[in-house]
Structures are given as C-alpha cells and as structure tokens.
C-alpha cells in the first residue's frame, strides 16, 4: 500500500511542477510587478492610474464590449451548428472539419484574412464582378469581429456539441409527449439541459477574447484597442512593466468573475418562481 501511495504521488509531480512553474509563479510575478512603477519603486500608483484615468476604463469597457460581441456572434452561429451536427450523418467527419482550422497557427490565419479582405483581395474582387467599387473591409470593426469569431468558433461548438450529445433524446420525446411544440421543447428542455455546454463555451471564448492583441493590430488596424493591446504596448514599447502587470491583474480578476458567473452553482436553496 505504501508503495502505491508513493507511485501515485510520483504521478502528481509533473502536474504539480507545471501548475507551480507555469500558473502560480507567473500570477504571483504579475501581482508583484504590478506594485512597482517604471523606476522600480514600490507604489500603488499603477492601480490608481488604472482606475482614475478614463483611458484605461474606456479600454476595459471596449475590451469587454468586443469580447461580448465576439462571444455573442460565435454563440449564435455555434448553437444551431452544434445542434445540426448532432443529427448529421458522419458527424465525426464534420467535427474534424471544424477542429481542423484550430491546428493552423493563429497568425497564419490572420495573414490569410488580410489577403482576403484587402482592397485587392478575394472579397473585393468578387464584389467587383457586380460592379461594386472596392470597399474598406480590412481594419474595420466588422472584419475584427468576423475574424475573431472565425477563430473562436471551434472552442464554442465543441462544448455545446458535447452538451447536446449528452442530452437524452428521451427528454425531448417526453416533452413532445406532454404536448409541447418544438419551440417550447427547445426553451423548456433542450436549452436548459445543454446550458452547461453553453457556459463552458462562453468561458472558452469570452476570456481569451478579452486579451486578443495580434488580431486587433493585423485585422483591426489598431482602431480597436483592447486590454491585450495595452499589455503588449506596456511590455514591449513603453517598457512600463508595472502598468502592464496591473492590467494583467485586472484581466485575471475579470476571468474569475466570468468563471463565477458562468460556473455551476449548487441548485439547493435556489429560489424558483
């Protein structure tokens, strides 16, 4: 028995090392850094700047707004897609096709879209066939949200698809049997019972979307400035690591808030109407 405990402890070592080195240590470092100003003096000034300057607050609202839009767009596309996928023939194949783009590097995909959306790109050439003059597509909010959603969609579809797969067809039949139309069955049974998949998808999309920065530059043309962009600027351009870390801490806190809001809550004590 003793040997067994030793072995199972040994199995924890890589995991524990990973967590300590790549999760806990960086978070502590970021929090530590956030208390120093650009000259290496201890200060609370970074937080004061963050919450007092309108710029950072605007930037935060901007980030949340765009992350919200991206999440909404992916959700609106992914739920029906996952639902159809569940009933499709050869669903493994379709699923593979959805996962496939995630194997390609994000930058590569971003550059591909620059080609597609540019003045002389595929979309404008196509519009040209109908005599429509080239439009500015790249560097607009539309293109930013479009590309970001495109990149995030697999991460939304997968958890929702799993949720729908786990849904027992018996519940749907039971609802129909009790007289519910399809739309009623959907709102009263299918959606509530697949909500955990939706929440997981929202977590997987919203949080990374908060800190997107390469896309804001390549596709959004720096018109869209999010917290991710700001962090990059502080660390690489202005070298104000303290301020960058402060924004990082804000993002981490935001993540926990999202996790809390979308997490599974205990059902007991929950009041119902």
């Amino acid at each position, binding site marked *: 028995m003793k040997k067994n405990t030793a072995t199972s402890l040994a199995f924890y070592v890589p995991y524990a090392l990973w967590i300590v080195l790549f999760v806990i240590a960086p978070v502590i470092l970021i929090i530590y850094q956030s208390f120093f100003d650009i000259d290496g003096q201890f200060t609370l000034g970074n937080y004061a700047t963050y919450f007092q300057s309108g710029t950072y607050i605007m930037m935060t609202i901007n980030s949340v707004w765009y992350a919200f839009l991206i999440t909404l767009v992916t959700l609106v596309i992914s739920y029906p897609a996952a639902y159809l996928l569940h009933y499709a023939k050869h669903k493994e194949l379709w699923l593979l096709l959805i996962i496939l783009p995630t194997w390609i590097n994000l930058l590569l995909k971003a550059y591909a879209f620059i080609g597609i959306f540019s003045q002389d790109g595929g979309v404008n050439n196509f519009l040209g066939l109908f005599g429509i003059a080239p439009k500015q597509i790249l560097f607009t909010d539309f293109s930013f949200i479009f590309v970001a959603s495109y990149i995030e969609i697999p991460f939304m579809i997968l958890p929702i698809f799993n949720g729908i797969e786990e849904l*027992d067809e*018996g*519940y749907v*039949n*039971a*609802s*129909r*049997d*009790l*007289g*519910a*139309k399809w739309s*009623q069955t959907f709102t*009263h*049974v299918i959606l*509530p*019972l697949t909500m955990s998949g939706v929440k997981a998808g929202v977590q997987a999309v919203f949080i990374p979307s908060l800190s997107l920065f390469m896309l804001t530059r390549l596709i959004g043309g720096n018109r869209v400035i999010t917290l991710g962009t700001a962090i990059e600027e502080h660390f690489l351009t202005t070298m104000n690591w303290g301020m960058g870390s402060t924004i990082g801490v804000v993002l981490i806190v935001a993540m926990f808030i999202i996790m809390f809001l979308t997490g599974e809550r205990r*059902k007991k004590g929950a009041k*119902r109407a």
Partner: protein
Amino acid sequence: MSNVIVELKHVYKRYGDTEVLKDINIEIEQGKFYTLLGPSGSGKTTILRAIAGFLDVSEGEVFFNGEKINDVPANKRRVNTVFQDYALFPHMNVLDNVAYGLRIQKRPKAEIKERVDKALKMVRLSGYENREISELSGGQQQRVAIARAIVLEPEVLLLDEPLSALDAKLRKDMQYELRELQQRLGITFLFVTHDQEEALALSDEIFVMSDGEVQQSGTPVDIYDEPINHFVADFIGESNIVSGHMVKDFVVEFNGKEFECADAGMRPNEPVEVVLRPEDLDITAVGEGKVTVDVDTQLFRGDYYEIVAYDDAKNEWLIHSTNPAKDGDRVDLTFDPEDIHVMRLNESEEDFDARLESYEGE
C-alpha cells in the same frame, strides 16, 4: 364494438431490410388494461412508439377514436407515455415536472395547482412537490412519471416497461398500484413488458409478440391455458413441450402412448406439439401414472419444489410439486385429459380461434 379507441391496421415498420413490425392488427378498447408481451427485440416498444407518435410506420394505418393519426405529431396526440427510464426533467422539481404539460397548455394557475395536487395524491406523493428528482428513489420517480402523464387526463396511457428498473419487492407493490390506478381512472392502459408474470397478473388482455408479429392475443387465462404455438407456450409460464400426433378427435399420441385429451378439429394423424404445465403434473408410484421418469434434480422454490426428471426416451420433464422427491428416484407422472394442450404446427390465430369455437361450442 364501438368503444375501440386505438386501432392498428396492417402496420409494418422497416429499417432498411429489417422488418421490425409485420402486419400488426390490434384493436384496443376503452377502459381496459392491455399488455404487449414479448422478449426484447420483438417489436412491442415499436408499437408503443408508433401509437405515441415517435416514429412513422412504413405501411398501414393507426387510428385513434376512429381518426387516422399517422400524420398527427406526438404533441397533438391524446395519449401520454410513461417512459422506461421515466425521462423526468432533471432540471425541474416534482411540481414542475408534473405541471409541465398543463403549463404548456397555458392553463390557469389555480387549475394547474388543483390538478397537480390530485395527480400527486393519486400516486401517493402528496407533499413531495418541492423535491428535486435526484432526491427521489426509483419507485418515487416512477410515480412522478405516472403523475406527469395522468395529470393530462389522456384517454390512453402508454407504459413502456415502467417497472423494469425497480427491485423485485417494489415491483410487486407497483403492480398492484398500477392495476388499482387503472381501475380508478377508468382509462385505457397499454403496458409493455417482457415479464410474463407481470403481464398475466395485470392485464385484461395480452398481445404476445415475437419477431415483430402478434403471436396470440387474448385474456391471460386463455393465453396460459390455450397457447397457440411453441413460442407462446414456452414464453408464457413454464411448460413441457413434447411432439406427438393427433390420432383422432380427443385422442393424442406422444411418448409412444395414446392419451385422452380435450382437443379436436385436426386432421387424423396430424403431427402436433403437446404442452403440459409443470404444475399440472402429479407424482405417483410407478405403475399408477401415465409417464415413467427418473428424477434428476430438484430445487426448493419456497412455495413448491421444482423437479427435473427424464423419461426413458430422454425427454426432460419439469414438475412443480408441493412434496419433495428424491434424486434418482423412479416415479410415475399423472395428469388429467384437460391438462393436455395440443398445438398444431404453424396455425394462424384466426384458424386457432375458429377451431376452438367449432368444438367448444357444442
């Protein structure tokens, strides 16, 4: 005859090349307890689903109150189902589950409350309204599933092996309750089970199914006493089936001897199968009975002994006796002429009924 509520006419169901229902003709009357009985894969649940509206039949017609309902969607059919795994909505409590159908119909709140109360009282779950489904035992979930279905006051309640997930004791209790409930509500129950004891105990009428066909239909007593063929005799109760042939009316030959029996209407010397129920066989001393056997093994079953014996032709005989026998003993078995049930090979149910009428009516 006018109170037929559900009728299936020449119903077929095919999945590719496999035929899961073959020419099903069933009439279900108002206010009775019907059972579809058969082994798994015999098509009994498929019939239920065809009536509930969860699948389209490939051929044939389904009638409800005289109206063809082949194209009526499940949510518009006036039947409700108690599912095998109950399918209670896990995100709702007992009250919300039972009230579901009424809320869909947008009934006034007071009426919903009244009807839910009544339904829960019917299944003896008053006071459980606010329990979560996960907090209920299997038997309680079963009752909620029934309450959820009967609260809508359907004319026909379909029950898909509702007792199969319960343990033996609870199952027996629920059988009584189901039968009682059916009589109190006065609505038609169509019950699906693979448990022949359950079917015999509960039903007014049984449809015995096998391979997508109705083998025999009738009252439990009819089916038990006059099984139409080998399958039914074997599936319903335990039986000794030996082959023989009909010498003439009321005389059958098997095991090299002629016996008086109560069956007639067959061709002389027609090959037949003979069914003898284990409980109809009595053990006597050698020389006093009709078949001589050697006792092989016996099992004590509580209320009787189950004895396995072999005759000289190495046929196995199963005997239920209140008195024990001894392993290795040589004994005689005796039985009365009416204990012998003769079955023709491949006789259709129609011919069977007609033949029985021809000589029983005398």
